[in-house]
């Protein structure tokens, strides 16, 4: 009898302690592709969230509650994302999602996340249905910004007027390719060849040779990962001594390796945080410095770009919670729409009731690899 009494008392105490802890914690769910094609970006996203949570927790958390980020690996697959989202809603009872770049996974979960009345902060593009978009906020720059930054550079800094597009077959890359075709005329450029590749291709010389044969003087590469290094090496192997390669935004290590191969013929799209030494004093530099103060000690050798975006999303969330004075999902959604223009480490975010894609001004610079580091291409 005595033993039963003590066990009951212990269980009651544990339950009460757990309940008190839950009330003191602000749980944020994050569906990220820690393996699979999105691994590089989504690991950075996860780590950016963790660093931001640490920084905010140091200052007392959000509304006095300690932030706890719960991550579920979706393996870059929508099916796994759905399972993870459901678990975080039912078991973990998160207040909001701040998820990675697997757009298909975020799309697949958007309907029931909306029904649960939980906002989704996303590294990816917005879900496609209007109702779902009311609950989602994208921290991704509109794809046209990356294209425009490269076209502008070619127009203003080179004599090249014919370009080729080299793209992978993902939906996002296809969308960018379409924009590349549309926007070329605005910059006085002509797209003379469009070639596709697969991210695991060991060789792209055929595609690059065709762009060259069509008169393309520059390759607009759309797609991320090591394929950029392969493309740079293939350009060199083909002896295309005048061809430029302009890469999508990516991890700095990729830029460094491709830059080592092609030298001053390799350019890339970069947010200011990837080129911090070039920043002039002002709010943007302050935001970058605030982020790097926490990022660099923990990850001195890692590229900060995608983590900076995750950091910014958490800072926007902190501001939304201040406005909402609540961690209720609906209140946070409404408050996010009222957050005034926020100058972040990656870009400036302007959310409103009608504007759920936060980046409205092109933040991108064109960078190159010179004297052993990534610098702004003048």
């Amino acid at each position, binding site marked *: 009898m005595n033993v039963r009494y003590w066990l009951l008392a212990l269980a009651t105490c544990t339950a009460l302690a757990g309940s008190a802890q839950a009330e003191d914690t602000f749980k944020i769910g994050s569906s990220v592709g820690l393996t699979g094609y999105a691994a590089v970006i989504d690991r950075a996203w996860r780590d950016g969230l963790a660093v931001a949570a640490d920084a905010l927790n140091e200052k007392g958390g959000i509304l006095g509650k300690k932030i706890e980020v719960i991550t579920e690996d979706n393996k870059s697959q929508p099916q796994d994302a759905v399972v993870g989202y459901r678990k975080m809603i039912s078991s973990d009872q998160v207040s909001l999602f701040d998820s990675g770049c697997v757009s298909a996974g975020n799309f697949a979960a958007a309907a029931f996340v909306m029904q649960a009345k939980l906002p989704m902060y996303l590294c990816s593009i917005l879900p496609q249905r209007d109702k779902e978009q009311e609950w989602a906020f994208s921290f991704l720059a509109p794809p046209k910004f990356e294209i425009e930054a490269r076209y502008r550079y070619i127009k203003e800094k080179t004599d090249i007027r014919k370009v080729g597009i080299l793209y992978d077959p993902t939906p996002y890359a296809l969308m960018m390719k379409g924009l590349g075709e549309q926007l070329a005329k605005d910059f006085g450029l002509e797209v003379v060849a469009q*070639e596709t590749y697969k991210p695991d291709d*060991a*060789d792209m*010389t055929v595609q690059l040779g065709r762009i060259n*044969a069509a008169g393309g003087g520059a390759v607009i590469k759309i797609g991320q990962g090591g394929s950029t290094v392969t493309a740079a090496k293939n350009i060199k192997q*083909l002896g295309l001594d005048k061809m430029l390669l302009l890469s999508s935004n990516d991890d700095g290590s990729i830029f460094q*390796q491709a830059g080592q191969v092609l030298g001053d013929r390799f350019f890339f799209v970069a947010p200011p945080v990837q080129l911090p030494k070039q920043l002039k004093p002002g709010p943007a530099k302050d935001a970058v410095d605030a982020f790097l103060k926490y990022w660099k000690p923990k990850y001195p050798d890692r590229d900060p770009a995608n983590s900076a975006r995750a950091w910014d999303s958490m800072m926007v969330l902190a501001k939304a919670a201040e406005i909402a004075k609540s961690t209720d999902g609906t209140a946070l959604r409404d408050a996010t729409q009222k957050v005034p223009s926020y100058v972040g480490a990656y870009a400036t975010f302007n959310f409103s009731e009608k504007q759920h894609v936060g980046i409205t001004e092109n933040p991108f610079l064109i960078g190159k690899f010179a004297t052993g580091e990534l610098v702004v291409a003048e």
Partner: protein
Amino acid sequence: MPSLVEFLQSIVNGVGVGLIYGLVGIGFCVIYNASGIVNFAQGVFVMLGGMVCETLLSQLGIPLIVAVVLTIPLVAISGIVMELAIVRPMMHRGATLFAIILATLAAQIMIERITLLTFGDRPRTYHEFTTGGPLKIGDVAIGYQLFWILGCGALLVLLLWLFFTRTRTGRALRACSQNREAAQLLGIPVARMMLIAFALSAALGAIAGILVTPTQYTAYNVGTPFGVNGFIAAIIGGFGRAGGALAGGLLLGVLQALAIVALGAGFKNVAALSFLLVVLLFFPNGLFAGFGKSAKAH
């Protein structure tokens, strides 16, 4: 309509990639002949070859030749570990070949994850063995690394031929491939032969990885496509026939390159797999085993 230069250029590049597939295919054959197992972890040896060599070169600053000489035995040891830790215990416990083959697939995933945790997810590469180039013949460009791939590939084929025909160990491996039980009755240490087969196969994968990485990049997940294409190469050539695997790899590499020229990159694998289906339909034992013969029971 693609130009003649495009076709010639694609053939040149297809030969380079195809030779790598061929080396991976030979790796499949060596293990299959010694044990009857299809080692689906073959692709990770290619990845490990590139990763270890890059680490020795870039992180530790070791000269290229030393890095290469160290990388090959290091990766070969990974093959030995796989045989000792996974394949041999399963065989001793009477596991079916299917179960062992599945275990090699699990080993591939495990090695990839260990590599990811150890080396990180950042793609890596290193410089071509000979700087400069390419060599231009008309409008067709041939990168210097391709000569290294061709030269080393030819040398390896010669060495393998000498090994299998002129050495006792090589002959013992061939005896195992023909009939393992009879070989054991004749006093050939079959278990040791399997160990040698895994080490040799891993070393071949490592050499392929060392050779191909300067033309592209390596990362924890690059092994799978090489493994799949090496497997296809081995089947096209007639599974178990090392020469056939090499020829199958060359054919596959050229075919994929031509498919990109004629149909686009999206059809590269469609063309390769369609070709594989045709080969299996008319040559069940592979192209080098004769027309219409039924599959040999193993």
